């Protein structure tokens, strides 16, 4: 429409910049979590994730090697080595030997510690500790350094949370439990709803309008009302807490939207095709299976995505109908809530766990967004 309006270029630029800002604002939270899930616990707690792209400067307390590694050279006792761990790259900008003055020396300087010897530290962490008398004691000399490390990312968090069988807080079991809940809970309501939607769209019978109104009404009934009565019912008939219960519950709660979406779509299918088929002697069952169902694929896909996202992301229904006292059947959302409680400050665990659970819906979202949008429009725009 901007072309018709002959919009001035100044305004177009303002629009472009606003959209960039809006998108950045909306992406920023997710990106933060994503980046954090690739950082170590130390990195996360020492600097904000936005700083992780740049080299970071940190104050650290390191130690020289302990005195048993000393060697005798030219009449002096010498300890040499590197302050940093084996595969770490960092650059020292200042260092000191006392906690009161941690920036006393520059790389290459030599600190005279009196009877403790003379220490020289290079920028890359190499040090040389020299003394006339033999070093004693069991631990090395403390060195306070200010070091700049290059950005560093790790896959360890994902290895711990997904592929470490000994990790009781891992997400593997919860991941498969969620999958077990989601697949039947997505497929079964589609089958039931498709038949009902066909009847409501293409068959004439008394009470049809009333039924459609009832479906519209049930669409908004809060599922909170259903928790206690249904849990009582499940316990009374012996289903108890478990997969069967949660499948049934998700089926029941998903049906109104399924029927509503599918009926709205089926009503819009061309009347001629269906009537021609009737004239040719097809039964309703045949019309449904051979004509309506294939033509309704977009609507079926829309609902399937909705139901998938909703069941995958659900917490309440799973807590009430599925997860029993043993916690064997915990789903990912519940696992994350528990980690939030017990590991509130361990962001490397939380971020990784959350991202494991978010990844699948995000993939589905980006792959099948078209159908999701179509379903949303059919469901709400009238």
């Amino acid at each position, binding site marked *: 429409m901007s072309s*018709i309006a002959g919009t001035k270029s100044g305004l*177009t630029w303002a629009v472009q910049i606003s959209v960039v800002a*809006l998108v950045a604002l909306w992406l920023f939270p997710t990106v933060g979590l994503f980046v954090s899930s690739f950082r170590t616990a130390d990195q996360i707690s020492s600097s904000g994730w936005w700083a992780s792209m740049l080299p970071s400067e940190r104050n650290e307390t390191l130690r020289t090697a302990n005195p048993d590694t000393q060697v005798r050279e030219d009449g002096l006792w010498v300890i040499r080595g590197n302050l940093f761990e084996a595969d770490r790259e960092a650059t020292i900008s200042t260092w000191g030997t006392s906690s009161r003055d941690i920036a006393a020396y520059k790389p290459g300087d030599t600190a005279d510690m009196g009877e403790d010897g003379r220490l020289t530290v290079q920028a890359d962490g190499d040090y040389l500790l020299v003394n006339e008398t033999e070093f004693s004691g069991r631990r090395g000399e403390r060195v306070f350094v200010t070091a700049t490390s290059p950005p560093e990312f790790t896959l360890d968090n994902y290895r711990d949370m997904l592929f470490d069988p000994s990790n009781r807080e891992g997400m593997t079991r919860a991941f498969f439990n969620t999958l077990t809940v989601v697949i039947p809970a997505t497929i079964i309501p589609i089958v*039931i709803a498709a038949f009902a939607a066909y009847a409501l769209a293409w068959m004439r019978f008394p009470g049809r309008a009333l039924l459609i*109104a009832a479906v519209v009404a049930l669409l908004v009934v809060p599922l909170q009302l259903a928790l206690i009565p249904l849990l009582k019912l499940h316990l009374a008939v012996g289903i108890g807490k478990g997969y069967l219960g949660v499948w049934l519950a998700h089926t029941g709660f998903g049906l109104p939207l399924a029927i509503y979406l599918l009926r709205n779509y089926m009503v819009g299918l061309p009347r001629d095709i269906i009537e021609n088929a009737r004239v040719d002697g097809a039964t*309703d069952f045949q019309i449904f299976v051979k004509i309506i169902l294939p033509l309704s694929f977009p609507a079926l896909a829309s609902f399937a995505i909705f139901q998938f996202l909703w069941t995958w992301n659900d917490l309440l229904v799973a807590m009430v109908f599925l997860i029993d006292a043993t916690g064997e059947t915990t789903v990912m959302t519940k696992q994350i809530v528990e980690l939030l409680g017990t590991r509130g400050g361990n962001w490397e665990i939380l971020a990784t766990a959350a991202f494991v659970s978010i990844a699948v819906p995000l993939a589905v979202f980006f792959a099948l967004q078209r159908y999701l949008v179509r379903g949303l429009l059919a469901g709400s725009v009238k």
Partner: protein
Amino acid sequence: MNPALQGLITIIVGVGGCIGYFYLSNQFLDKVLFPARGRHIGRNINRANMIRPWLFLFPAIFALGLYLGYPVIETLRLSLTDRSLDGAFVGLDNYAQMASEPKFWEAMRNNMLWLIVVPAVATAFGLLAAQLTDRIAWGNVAKSFIFMPMAISFVGAAVIFKLIYDTRPANQDQIGVLNAVWLMFEGGPGSFLFLRLLPAAIVLCFALLMAYVVYLALKPLIRRETGQARASWWAVPLRLTAGLVAVWLIWLSLGSVHSVMTAEFAYGAPQTWLTLPFWNSLFLMVVLVWIQTGFAMVILSAALRGIPEETIEAAILDGANPFQIFFKIKVPQIMGTIVVVWTTITLVVLKVFDIVFAMTNGQWETQVLANYMYDKLFRANDWGVGSASAIVIMVLVLPILVWNVYNARKEMN
């Protein structure tokens, strides 16, 4: 049994059972009960066709009745009985007990705040995003990023935002964005601009919008134009209520403008955002706004595209500027869709549970009805009061339910 195997069997039994049921019952109807042959062929076909819809509908009606219809009645019954007295009828005692609990009123107050803020802000942002992205070449990419949070679970979003709200002691680097930004304010002119003027301006805009709503709602009551169709009997009270609510909201917004301009801010000290009463509720609402804006944007963008070009061209020929085109031509034409978006988000807000449960669990005065209900049902094991609060949620949903059904029926006729 292995749950995955159990799941596979359930899919096969469920899907196979459904299809088998539909096929066999249709066969039974056509071949055995009312065969399309013999002396009564015509009558039989008619009868079979009368019964068939119910065969198609039966599983759905059964499941809907059992999983949504029955619970409404049963919850209503439970809210009138006491579990500890073996389910004896106690009248409205549960409601009285609930009304005497400060936590319940806290939940009600917060829910009302959620109901005002989240739909308004999400719809406004959605409209803004829809209008802006429709005008640029890479609009679809931008849309899909803004829409993306829809796929993220409330629990995942809670983790994401807890990281943003994280607090470290004052002498350490902040790892939460909000505190990092907060520490950049020191009380100078920048702080005045961003922490006082900007919020005040936003709230004032909202107040002006509400004033416009009052005007729209009351105009027909004061000056009845001739030739207008007679309004329904309920239009007058509805308009009065809407007007009163809007006036009340204006009053609230003016009050908050005053407090924003005069409040003392703790500059330079990292805040534990989720423990600051009142503000923490707003921080929780941000999460839901973040999720729902994409939904509002998608629907409103489709509506904006559906506006007839001629109306806009006519406005341009008449010399309207882009803002006039947007507010005077486009917005009135998509008012119906805005209402649909608003009510849909309202429904989500009424049921909001996961966010509060995962982030604060109702502590520090952030309780909402759904979480209060969960507390009562599964922690206190008080089914009476829990059911009563579920009924309160149902009652709050009821106006939207009636409105939806009314619209659906109007459209079908």
